[in-house]
């Protein structure tokens, strides 16, 4: 497999805390990578650096050969729109938009037609089993359904990598299981590269590869 992400010597300080310290790792295309650590270990910060959500203090990240650490805010936004999908622990849906619109959100700034945009969103909703909830609003959905909307939103731009930050952290065990199964099926059936952050040992074991992090430092690879 080819490396889709090559990260070298990443460091990030938040306030006075060194959240990530000299982390280097590779993510291969089609890989399901889990980053595991306890609360405050720096795993979410590492994920935000790898996904281009946040900028490193030092180090280098190459995403399909492109150095994203030198990009400005707007270039990073465009990079995220075209290359990555992000799934958050708290879903982060927009309450005034319905399911279809929330899924289509990353396409809003594009100049594509409304019909084309909603056709893609409908297709993404179908792929996560939400075709029957398109006109519902987030407050009318269960936690699992909201997370599936977030996954569909992450899929709509056909990203190269999906980053999932504690995707089951706010769900009950059974629903969490379903979400992990969904991510795994996307990985196996569509060959999507997935980087998932979790504190859960059980979930971490579902990944092809596990990286453990403690106090901002990778303790195994």
């Amino acid at each position, binding site marked *: 497999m080819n490396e889709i992400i090559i990260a070298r010597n990443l460091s990030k300080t938040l306030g006075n805390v060194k959240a990530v310290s000299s982390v280097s790792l590779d993510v291969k295309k089609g890989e399901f990578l889990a980053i595991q650590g306890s609360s405050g270990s720096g795993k*979410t910060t590492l994920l*935000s650096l790898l996904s281009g*959500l*946040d900028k490193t203090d030092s180090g280098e990240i190459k995403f399909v050969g492109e150095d994203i650490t030198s990009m400005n*805010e*707007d270039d990073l*936004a*465009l990079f*995220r*729109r*075209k290359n990555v999908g*992000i799934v*958050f622990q708290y879903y*982060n*849906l*927009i*309450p*005034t*938009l319905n399911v279809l*619109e929330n899924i289509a*959100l*990353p396409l*809003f*700034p594009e100049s594509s037609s*409304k019909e084309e945009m909603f056709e893609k969103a409908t297709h993404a909703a179908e792929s996560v089993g939400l075709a029957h909830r398109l006109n519902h609003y987030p407050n009318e959905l269960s936690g699992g359904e909201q997370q599936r909307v977030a996954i569909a*939103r992450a899929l709509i*731009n056909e990203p190269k990598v999906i980053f999932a930050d504690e995707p089951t952290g706010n769900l009950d065990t059974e629903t969490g299981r379903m979400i992990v199964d969904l991510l795994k099926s996307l990985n196996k059936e569509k060959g999507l590269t997935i980087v998932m952050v979790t504190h859960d040992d059980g979930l971490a074991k579902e990944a092809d590869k596990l990286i453990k992090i403690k106090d901002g430092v990778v303790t195994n690879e």
Partner: protein
Amino acid sequence: MIGYALKELRKRNRKYLLNILVIGLVVVLLITLNSLGIAFKEASRLPFENIHSSIIVQRNGNVPENTSGAVTPCSLAPIKSEYLSQINKIDGVKGMSYGLFLWVFDKDSFKRTLGVNWNDDRGKIIGSELIEGSLPQSDTDALAEREYAQQHGLKLDQKVKVSGTDFTISGIVETSGKDVVSSDVYVNLSSAQSLAYNSKNLQDTEKFNRNDINIIFVDADQTKVKEVTDNLKALFSSPTSNGGKTPTGQTTGAYSIYTPESFESQISSLFLMSDRLILTVSLVALIGAVLIVIKSMSHTLMERRKEFGIMKAVGFRSKDIQREVAAETLLQAIIGYSLGVAMSLVAIFALAKTTVSIAIPWEMSPYPHFLTSNPNLIAPVQTYPFPIKFEAVYSAEVLIAVFALSLLTVLVLMRYINGLNAMEVLRYE
């Protein structure tokens, strides 16, 4: 983007309602204030519109020694007819009418008598008010005003004595309350000049030449009223003053030149708004509205921090979010403006149903104080439909101002959006 903005406004309507109302109220204030200002300026011209003139020239004179025969009121002293040709030469003068207004103290009654040139505009206007009979065909014919004729039982073909001369009533006119200089009896100008010339009382009070007149109505090009007025003031700037004052405080011998502006002080002070005052109130309202909208929008944006963080996380650039906020702000401006225009139309429609009363200065419609039991005759009040209308061009200017200020609001808010870091927002919210 517009679809998203519309949805935001619909879903968060309570938050945006204040902005829309503020914009609407400012638009109402601006449009209505401006329309009121224009309407009252228009209203001040109405007494002149009735006489188809823009400027009236009179001369102040002396008070008669006694009340007998024909005299000129102190606000209407004789003016030499030579001035007429000079007025005609002034650039901007489209036409001119003139007359001789007399107080006639006869033994049977007091009569306001106006000598009229029936061929000029003024004469034609009086003639158009004929309700019975015909215009004077000779120097011994006269028209009687309807109310005066009723009070004194005058009918067509009856004789009426004016300063010792018999006139035959050839017609009845209805001019009361329609004119700044209304009279009881209307005769040929030459007849009035003869009455004046032969009046010992008048000759003792003022020197009257046979062709003198005492009121001139100048019809000026509307765009040149000021220039014509200035030229008339220059022409009549050398009064043969004896240093005295008329009972109403005017300098004896000096000329009075009345224009529509002369009536502005007659209109209720509530509506006497200068352009500068309107501009000041408008500016204060606009600045107030901008501050309220900026504060309200900033508050809303703070509440939507997480939403903007999510948008940035999924790939919105700062300018994509700015476009979204701009669309929302402009939509509020459009809705607020439309609301304001609708409310202005209702307000202007209601105001157009009202009337405006203008008191005609005594000098322009003189009546002896000592003869009347009706105070309205001393300062007759004329009532007109209030000439207010919706000013479409000004409304378009207000629309441009509202758009410009909305863009200013967006510019102020942009700094906030630019400084927003997706991860920081999502980390802490």
